[in-house]
């Protein structure tokens, strides 16, 4: 949808993606009409709270959904080619080579009984025929690239011998091995300490800028993506509720939920005061309210919100799914 308005060709183009979990009790719709695109070299921040569907979006793109979850309808195009419905073997060729993913906990994604060397050579050889010395030199280069000291020695280490930050670097090095067009990072720094998080942010930012890799950074923390993202997308209960350039979304949020999220973050100059809070909590997906899912918690909800709002362009490059988008009200002055 937005791809046509941007001159840079989209690496990823998603249209009306619907993903569901087929449970014994019926179909649970976890993603509804998700449409967005990511351009080459662009960093997209995908923000949402637990249960908003942000991780499922990542899994759907990467073809990592396992039953009972499956993509019900919609289209995901990578470099213009449809990848929904690809046979598993073809999908496997893409995964790791064209799309890579980095997860929150590298201890879960790295194999604990294999040395780093083996894990890197597996990843390399999955997509390229390479000789031993090639594999070694490429692995070392990749580790060097992510700032791991004495990479030759680290190749023979097991994941548990590395610190959390180092493990995440290794995971990023593996994701970058084939210079993918798109990397999806699912809360990659949530488990890390502040100083290490800063290091990872700097690293990812540099790698993506240098190589023109498109990046989707999935997080619940608005502040993390504020620093590195070009564009922000906010999800709530399986739907995109707002999307736009990072400055626009953070300075003049149009959706009351986005505004609520921003107000919930402690900021300087508010010391010791009560934070503005969003009342209630996110509804369970099995029991979504009629119409707009945010309506029971929304300060500006009216009867009109009982029918589903459409996703509409609000301003240039700024879209919102709301019947009463906030406009021209300066931030922090509207009622919370």
């Amino acid at each position, binding site marked *: 949808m937005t791809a046509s308005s941007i001159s840079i060709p989209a690496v990823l183009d998603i249209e009306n993606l619907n993903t569901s979990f087929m449970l014994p009790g019926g179909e649970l719709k976890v993603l509804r009409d998700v449409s967005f695109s990511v351009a080459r070299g662009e960093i997209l921040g995908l923000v949402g*709270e*637990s249960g908003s569907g942000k991780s499922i979006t990542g899994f759907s793109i990467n073809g990592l959904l396992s039953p009972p979850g499956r993509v019900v309808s919609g289209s995901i195009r990578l470099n213009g080619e449809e990848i929904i419905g690809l046979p598993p073997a073809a999908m496997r060729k893409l995964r790791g080579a064209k799309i890579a993913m980095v997860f929150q906990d590298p201890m879960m994604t790295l194999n604990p009984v294999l040395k780093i060397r083996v894990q890197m050579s597996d990843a390399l050889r999955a997509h390229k025929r390479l000789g031993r010395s090639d594999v070694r030199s490429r692995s070392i280069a990749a580790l060097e690239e992510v700032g791991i000291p004495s990479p030759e020695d680290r190749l023979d280490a097991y994941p548990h011998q590395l*610190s*959390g*930050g*180092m493990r995440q670097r290794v995971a990023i090095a593996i994701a970058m091995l084939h210079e993918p067009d798109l990397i999806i990072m699912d809360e990659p720094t949530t488990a890390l*300490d*502040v*100083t*290490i*998080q*800063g*290091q990872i*942010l*700097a690293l990812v*930012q540099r790698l993506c800028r240098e190589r023109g890799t498109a990046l989707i950074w999935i997080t*619940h*923390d*608005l*502040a*993390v993506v*504020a*620093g*590195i993202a*070009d564009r922000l997308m906010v999800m709530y209960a399986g739907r995109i509720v707002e999307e736009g350039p*990072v*400055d626009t979304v*953070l300075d003049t949020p149009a959706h009351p939920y986005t505004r*609520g*999220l*921003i*107000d*919930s*973050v*402690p*900021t*300087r100059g*508010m*010391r*010791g005061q*009560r*934070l*503005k*809070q*969003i009342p209630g*909590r*996110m509804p369970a997906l099995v029991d979504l309210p009629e119409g707009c899912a945010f309506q029971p918690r929304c300060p500006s909800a009216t009867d009109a919100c009982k029918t589903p709002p459409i996703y509409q362009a609000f301003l240039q490059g700024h879209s919102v799914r709301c019947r009463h988008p906030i406009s021209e009200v300066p931030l922090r002055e509207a009622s919370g």
Partner: protein
Amino acid sequence: MSSPILKVSNVSRRFGEKSDIIARLLARLGLIRPKPVVTAVDDVSFTLERGRVLGVVGESGCGKSTLGRMIAGLLPPSEGEITLDQGDGQHRAMPMQMIFQDPFSSLNPRKRVRELVCEAPRVHRIVEHGELQAYVEQLMERCGIDPSVRDRYAHQFSGGQRQRIGIARALAVEPEVLVADEAVSALDVSVQAQSINLFLDLRDVFGLTYVFISHDLGVIEHIADTILVMYLGRVVERGPAEDVFARPMHPYTRALIDGVPRLDRRRVTYEPIKGDIPSPIDPPPGCHFHPRCPFAQPQCREERPETRQVEGRLVACHLAEDINQHKEPSAWQVTPSA
């Protein structure tokens, strides 16, 4: 608001130091290596005034949780002492309580909310038996849990609600000091704001004193009056929160504060502090922070910096004054990128 309620003097905690006589003998003979000793908390002192909030910040392995556990009385210190001054002469059974990070593992899954909350006041006879139910309901309401759900089990609640149950349980014994260890870290942003508000409200209602432990500097900056920055077991800086955040003196504090992503920091180029946090088993000599410090001098490698008073706060850095003469010396300052 004035008299100190909590006094922590020269408290240290070591782990793994006790070995039996045979192990010691063998170690002496050089047959086995002596057990490694981790000094989790190293000579920490402070006082906390009634009704104030102390924020303890630091990264993993800095000893903040160990310190919290010692304050709450869950762990005896290896050295030093922690005293609580119950000024009003009124003796309370359990003056210190702790709120844990993970509300999933700190609530007994086999007990109903009502039982979880009323167990301690019943055992300690804080409330008459006949008044228990009303007491529990009142507490639940105060903490924002609908009393009608008192017969449910912990797994039937969301993370934020479970945290509230943990808070209600802690308040049930009328504590004076609450130690909250990463109490809001695991929560979603909107739930976190609700929790922080609850903590602020309860402080006003019950006159509580908090020790708030967190790695999240944004939360600490919001809620704390005084902050204590720890690195590998030692306090590197302590002072009024506002001052410390406005003008951090220790290079580590500065690195922490500069490293925090903020909503108003857009498209920045992160130039983070280098290196990993060293292992607490084998911390670097001298100043623990010197291998990562951009200002480190030979002195820092050898001499442990004493905690000194510098401009109204305590700093453990040899170079505190020199560093602070330069206004923007930070090697890792976040700068807007082109």
